[in-house]
């Protein structure tokens, strides 16, 4: 047996606490390598790269505020609505915590949409970052589920009817659909069992997201951040340590983010919500228009654009699931839209179609709105379907030799 030289282990916890800990659990160097001096990032990242860390912060804000709300909220159909008012009126600082959570959900989506759009524009989904991209989509899906569940909890009219409409979509599953919906509700309609389990899941899923975020960052570290040129780094001088360069840039970005966020929290907390949700849930009275939260509107528009319900549901879920195969639909070796004149226009049109669908999702499903929804649904999917062709036909601009 070969001799293993005795490893020198730091014994002095008082004089060398850092080395002492490092020898036992290297957690500090782990963090330093993840988001500190040990992680080298391209030096040319623009401000669109701030949305990654902002999404992380938005998640933390939701978890912290949510925790305090959970201490006062009651998941019971007879108590839920009143318990929210109890938080708003009687709990010390309760209105602030709830407004932060409510507005925070919307701002989380704004940040994540910007983060996804940045990945799309600069080709961050391409080889070798496909798995990183996948985990991002999974996070997005679970985040949407969490937001949907959370909107049910105040037990207002939109909570109840939104939950009814959305859960009913699953009834299109062949053969077992109706049973799945009843199983999900825990009864024959949205009711107390539904509210209780939605609360349990709404509490659980954010922590699932935290776990997925760790995997997302792990995958990021395998090949490092993409950058606005989309080209791989060739020299060490092209990279800078994450700390202090990007930590301070993210702190500045955080300030820029918190100003509109807090403006909404303190001056327009209800602007993104629906007045009907201040009417207690009433299974006997259907609201005139059932509208989901704004961040679901583009997908809601796709759902309603297609006259056959089953196909509409498939299209709605497909509109997000198609992102999973995006790295294989777009076979162009050039990542960044900066050097892809056709793709660049397509991304702009795609983003415009998402905004258009968002607007159309807020309108009643009739007349010109339906036709426009169908048109923009076609544009939305057309973007993906044209990608293989564009990758073949497009002549990219010359790529820079190194990042600048």
């Amino acid at each position, binding site marked *: 047996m070969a001799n293993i030289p005795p490893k020198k282990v730091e014994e002095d916890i008082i004089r060398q606490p850092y080395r002492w800990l490092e020898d036992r659990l290297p957690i500090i160097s782990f963090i330093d390598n993840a988001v500190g001096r040990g992680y080298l990032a391209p*030096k040319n990242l623009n401000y669109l790269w701030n949305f990654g860390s902002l999404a992380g912060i938005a998640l933390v804000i939701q978890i912290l505020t949510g925790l305090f709300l959970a201490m006062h909220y009651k998941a019971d159909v007879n108590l839920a609505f009143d318990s929210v*008012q109890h938080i*708003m*009126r009687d709990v010390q600082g309760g*209105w*602030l915590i709830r*407004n932060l959570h409510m507005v925070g959900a919307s701002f989380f989506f704004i940040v994540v949409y910007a983060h996804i759009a940045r990945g799309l524009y600069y080709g961050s989904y391409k080889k070798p970052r496909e798995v990183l991209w996948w985990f991002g989509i999974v996070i997005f899906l679970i985040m949407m589920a969490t937001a949907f569940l959370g909107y049910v909890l105040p037990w207002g009219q939109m909570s109840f009817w939104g939950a009814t409409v959305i859960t009913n979509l699953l009834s299109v599953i062949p053969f077992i659909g109706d049973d799945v919906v009843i199983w999900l509700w825990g009864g024959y309609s949205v009711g107390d069992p539904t509210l209780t389990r939605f609360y349990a899941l709404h509490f659980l899923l954010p922590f699932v997201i935290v776990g997925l975020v760790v995997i997302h960052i792990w995958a990021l570290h395998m090949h490092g951040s993409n950058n606005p040129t989309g080209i791989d780094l060739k020299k060490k001088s092209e990279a*800078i340590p994450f700390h*202090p*360069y990007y930590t*301070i*840039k993210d*702190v*500045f970005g*955080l*300030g*820029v983010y*918190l*100003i509109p966020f*807090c*403006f909404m*929290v*303190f*001056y327009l*907390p*209800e602007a993104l919500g*629906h*007045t*009907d949700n*201040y*009417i207690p849930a009433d299974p006997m009275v259907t609201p*005139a*228009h059932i*509208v989901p939260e704004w961040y679901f509107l583009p997908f809601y528009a796709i759902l309603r654009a297609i006259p056959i319900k089953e196909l509409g549901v498939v299209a709605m879920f497909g509109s997000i699931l198609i992102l999973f195969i995006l790295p294989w639909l777009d076979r162009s070796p050039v990542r960044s839209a900066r050097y892809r004149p056709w793709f*660049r*226009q397509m991304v*702009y049109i795609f*983003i*415009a179609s998402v*905004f*258009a669908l*968002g*607007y159309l999702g*807020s*309108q009643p499903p009739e007349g010109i709105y339906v036709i426009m929804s169908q048109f923009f649904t076609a544009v939305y999917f057309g973007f993906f379907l044209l990608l293989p062709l564009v990758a073949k036909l497009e002549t990219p601009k010359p790529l820079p030799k190194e990042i600048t």
Partner: protein
Amino acid sequence: MRFLLFSFIALLLAPAAFAGGAVEVEKHDWDFQGLPKEWDKDQLYRGYAVATQVCMTCHGMKYINHRQLMDVGFTEAEVKAMAAELNMSINDKLVSGLEPEDAKELYGKEVPDLSLINKARAGLADYTYAVLVGYSEDPDEIHHALPDGVPEGAYYNRAFPGHAIAMPSPLTGPDLVEYHDETEASIEQMAKDVTYFLQWTAEPELLERKKLGVYVLLYLLIFTVLAYLTKRAIWRDVH
């Protein structure tokens, strides 16, 4: 292209801002908009008089009791006297004497609680006011809005979506209540005062929220400027 994109988005968002409301209600300048330091105690008192003497015949305000009025400038003695006038303790919630079942028999539907009414209708406070002053018996106007006539058991109202409301006009004429101050209790004045009161019942935290917001935003502004200067200093050697 970018310009096109953003103008396109702006074009789409412009109508979205007005979407959703079935009936347009006139906007008013309310004292609680902007950054007032405190609730106008006199107006609250007037609104309270209308709310308790008129609205509470049928409606409740179940999240409100008299003790909470002490948060907006009423003394304990005043609050006790006000509660006693209604045969209530200061901890009793403001609920109507009308039982929900009786209300349903009278009006054919449940009578909504008013605590949150200013947050629960498109148009917010402006809507509450518009409904209160929106009754009319002018046959031309009614015929124009409801060519088939007003349905049985309903009343014409200009602001109510569909124009046929189950609630009979609550402010039937001036001087329904006697105000504690010199203010004349016209229909418009009573509607205005009770809307003001209902804003407080809907958002008792409103003024505290707006006040705190100023400090938070000032702090963030300074924080962000300092963060930017620090960022520039740290990045100096990179560019």
